[in-house]
């Protein structure tokens, strides 16, 4: 029997990160996929990042993951979203050459020592006394494994819908994995069903660009990885193109509603509200006929273009009619049709905050199997699950990253505590401490937990010293009103100075920048880009950051109050039945998490706390 330390099932964005980090840490790792020629495939948007997702990608990088480096190497357009808003919500996004991205990831996986690849379908788990010991393949092969990380995406009982016809499949071009769903059922897991979809890909040679609005990349593109130098980074090679739907598009969709699997009741899985199909948008917002359509090239050497905004499961001929009704797409030719996919997921309240199943030790889940959506969400979970699989094998306490530390922490806590009712996507509005969870400080927040491949803790500490010294200087140096200062203030759109003020205070004026301030009061030694960025953000946001820091301080305390895994909720007198039920289901790791379970009241948690203290004291008395 073949034996490995960590077995990763699925070579999508979650699987890649899980496998790479395991192998890099010296664990014998096997990456099993049904389609080894599609490692790191982007079956939906050819893009990485976006609001909250961009921050998450930077976090993956800070922890030593690969996604950021891969997009820096294969991206073809880079933009910073939310530029007009505060630095806390700046969000990097990039268009990928999806074929180059797959090549990059495939080559890297094949070249990583300790990582072996196998094309196979895993159909069953081998479990002994509630502990995972191996897996079984469709061919009957058994592989012993210390831990398994399941990253099967949309493949579990995947069902593709093209109009009213449907066929099994995990992706447009790939077979589904039905046996593993059955294995989960045999093991007593609860399964759920979700739906997602994608748009048609059209031939770029059949688009009339004259009639479209061009959307170029940023003039000063910023890479994702902390390891990619900012200076000289320029991978802006293509533009995206904007058009809109119109009244005619709407009429076509409405006339053909009887052919929609979504509205005829054929699709049972629950779809996402933030990623609706065009038929969904028309039905829910009938007055809104003008929807943005972005044409995104899928790569440099391909004719395929992604039609962002036109996700649909209507039949091919309706997709043609819809496209042709839009300005600039009158002659568009479809290369691949859009479709919807339904798939099984394992509701993530069955997981611990380490993403390990509560039922079977050594079995971890990451990505769409947990009901999330998005490449970035998947990759982050893959990395996190692998960290915890390794700790499990090393018999160490799990790595828990909490809500105040990272979007990754928000994501994991949300799904394991609150559960998932529709495919889960990150938004910055889900984070309580948004001003702290910025893309620019992901290294500072997380490097110590990770591999330190892309950024290193000693370097960050050095930088922090420089930053502290410079902020001190800005606080202690006074700027007296002068011709030069008032000239500078005028340039920045600010009122002239009436009296002397610390430089810090001058910098806090909305229009003022550190760069401008340095023209009059240059730093003693020239500072690097990241230091300057940190100084400016920390000075400008200082009051708000301090306010959030106080909240985090309180939050962290309840997170540290652990509830033992063996805690007997039935023994607590006076808990309402529904609360008891929910607590037993989620089995929160600490009092903070207990508090966030939907339906649990503060008084329930208070009673729990007292009961637990009482127990501990009784035990101490015995000893």
């Amino acid at each position, binding site marked *: 029997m073949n034996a490995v330390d960590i077995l990763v099932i699925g070579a999508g964005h979650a699987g890649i990160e899980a496998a790479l980090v395991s192998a890099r840490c010296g664990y014998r790792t096997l990456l099993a996929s049904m389609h080894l020629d599609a490692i790191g495939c982007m079956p939906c948007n050819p893009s990485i990042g976006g*609001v909250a997702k961009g921050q998450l990608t930077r976090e993956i990088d800070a922890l030593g993951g690969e996604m950021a480096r891969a997009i820096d190497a294969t991206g073809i357009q880079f933009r910073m979203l939310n530029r007009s808003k505060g630095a806390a*919500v700046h969000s990097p996004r990039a268009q990928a050459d999806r074929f180059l991205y797959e090549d990059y990831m495939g080559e890297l996986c094949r070249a990583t020592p300790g990582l072996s690849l196998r094309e196979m379908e895993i159909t069953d788990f081998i479990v002994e006394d509630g502990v995972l010991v191996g897996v079984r393949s469709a061919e009957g092969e058994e592989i012993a494994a210390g831990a398994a990380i399941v990253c099967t995406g949309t493949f579990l009982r995947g069902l593709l819908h093209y109009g009213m016809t449907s066929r099994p499949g995990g992706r447009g071009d790939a077979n589904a994995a039905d046996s593993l769903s059955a294995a989960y059922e045999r093991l007593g897991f609860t399964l759920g069903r979700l739906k997602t979809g994608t748009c048609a890909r059209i031939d770029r040679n059949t688009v009339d660009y004259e009639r479209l609005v061009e959307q170029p990349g940023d003039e000063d593109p910023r890479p994702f990885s902390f390891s990619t130098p900012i200076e000289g980074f320029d991978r802006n090679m293509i533009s995206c193109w904007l058009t809109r739907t119109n009244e005619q598009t709407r009429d076509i969709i409405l006339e053909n509603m009887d052919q929609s699997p979504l509205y005829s009741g054929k699709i049972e899985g629950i779809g996402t509200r*933030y990623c609706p199909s065009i038929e969904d948008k028309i039905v829910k917002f009938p007055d809104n006929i003008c*929807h943005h359509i972005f044409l995104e090239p899928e790569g440099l050497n391909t004719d395929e273009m992604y039609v*962002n905004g036109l996700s649909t499961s209507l039949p091919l001929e309706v997709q043609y009619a819809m496209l042709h009704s839009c300005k600039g797409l009158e002659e568009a030719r479809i290369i691949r049709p859009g479709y919807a996919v339904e798939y099984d997921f394992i509701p993530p309240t069955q997981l611990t905050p380490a993403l390990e199943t509560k039922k079977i030790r050594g079995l971890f889940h990451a990505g769409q199997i947990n009901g999330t959506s998005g490449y970035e969400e998947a990759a982050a979970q893959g990395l996190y699950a692998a960290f915890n699989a390794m700790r499990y094998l090393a018999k160490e306490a799990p790595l828990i990253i909490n809500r105040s530390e990272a979007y990754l922490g928000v994501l994991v806590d949300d799904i394991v505590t609150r559960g998932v009712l529709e495919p889960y996507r990150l938004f910055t*509005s*889900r984070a309580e401490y948004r001003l702290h969870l910025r893309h620019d400080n992901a290294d500072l927040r997380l490097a110590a937990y990770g591999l330190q491949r892309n950024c290193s803790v000693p370097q960050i500490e050095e930088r922090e010293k420089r930053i502290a010294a410079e902020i001190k200087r800005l606080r202690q140096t006074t700027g007296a009103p002068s011709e030069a200062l008032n000239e500078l203030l005028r340039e920045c759109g600010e009122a002239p100075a009436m009296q002397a003020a610390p430089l810090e205070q001058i910098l806090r004026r909305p229009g003022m920048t550190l760069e401008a301030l340095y023209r009059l009061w240059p730093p003693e030694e020239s500072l690097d880009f990241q230091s300057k960025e940190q100084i400016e953000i920390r000075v400008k946001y200082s009051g708000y950051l301090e306010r959030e820091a106080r909240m985090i301080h309180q939050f962290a305390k309840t997170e540290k109050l652990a509830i033992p895994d063996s805690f007997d909720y039935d023994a607590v007198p006076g808990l309402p039945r529904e609360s008891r039920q929910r607590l037993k289901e989620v089995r929160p790791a600490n009092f903070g998490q207990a*508090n966030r379970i939907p339906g649990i009241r503060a008084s329930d948690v208070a009673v729990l706390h007292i009961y637990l203290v009482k127990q501990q004291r009784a035990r101490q008395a015995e000893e």
Partner: protein
Amino acid sequence: MSYLYSDDTIAAISTPPGEGGVGIVRLSGPASLSIAAKVFVSSRAKNISKGSQRVYHGHVLDEEGNPLDEVLLHIMRAPHSYTAEDVVEINGHGGRASLQAILECVLAQGARLAQPGEFTRRAFVNGRIDLTRAEAVMDLIHAKTRAALRMAESASSGRLAGQLQALANLLKECLALAEAAVDFPEEDLPELITPAFFARLEKAKEEMAALVKSTDTGLLLQEGASIAIVGRPNVGKSSIFNLLLRDARAIVSPEPGTTRDQIEETLTLGGIPVRLCDTAGLRKTEHAVESQGIERSRQAARRAALLLFVADASSEAEEEESLLAEEMRQLEVPVVFVLNKIDLPAVAERKIPDIPFAALCHVSAMTGEGMEELEKTLVSLLAGDLEGALDSPALFRSHQKDSMQRALKCVQALLENRDASPEILALELRDALSALGSITGETTSEEVLDIIFGSFCIGK
């Protein structure tokens, strides 16, 4: 939000409501002494912030520095206190309303209003209560929560609940706009942070400020409308107080100035809860203790919903009486003029102070004549008051006021900083909603997303 493991400082009134006389405002936590030091002036000018285990005499001052109440302040240093934390107990004499005012003073200085059972919980967690009492603590939390739930349920059918919910919804909708501006920059959304956005919050701010003001009415309804009996010494105030109470609690003697302190009792008049307050006679005096009593009488009169102005029908109106009348007119509290001692020979054409009275009654506290008429008058006046108060929703609990005040602060901060980026506007709105959470329920990010997806066509 849970306060399981808080190291902040909490405060609450720790005497049950409805009991007259002395009451305690208790503080517990590391900042107890420093907060108490900000509101308390010791009679011997001692700085108490470094004080040790002892009792101080002095006054609690309001924000403008006016004395609120004469108090005894008891300091218990950690771990030698009920909660094993630094504890300060402020013993006041001024009755419920004045305790409430003291509590608000310490909250304004940074204490947080304690959750139900929180002192006991801290005492237990810090090892001050033995195991056998742990169950009792849990019961207490349950009981208080049930009581609060009943309260919430009974209020939920009311107008107040409706208004609070509407307010929370408005804040949520504004938050949804700010969040959408951050989370969906690439969507084809209309302008989100518009003058209309601020106009709605401006309206919310006014409503919130009105609700904070209304708390006094709310507490009044819950804990009884207060009626103060005022008048010159020896006109029979205590006799009337006793008749209304039908017991002999107050000392009645013909010696002027017997009631040097105010005496407060709770009773019901025609089904309306009333706190009746017998005040010391209002007159000029050189006697130190009595002059303090007189000052408290004035304060009681200021807080009352209704004043009984008692005068002696058998003696001529003195100048002091018209001065008193003028003072009461300025309080803008309805005044019932009661001419007592009608059993004695009346003074012909007795002058009556020239201020607008809500009613005029003739009684004899000695024979009881006219008392029934007086009670009827009071009931009809109070009922009218109640109706008026019930017409506009009021906050009923100091918890509610505390929450509303904190929420109001955030909305004010937002409106003063309109050019801020949407994530900053959202921060204020999130904090406002979190402060309101204890009265209207927590706002989850899921709810906000629901509003966004319900209002805008978002997603690709």
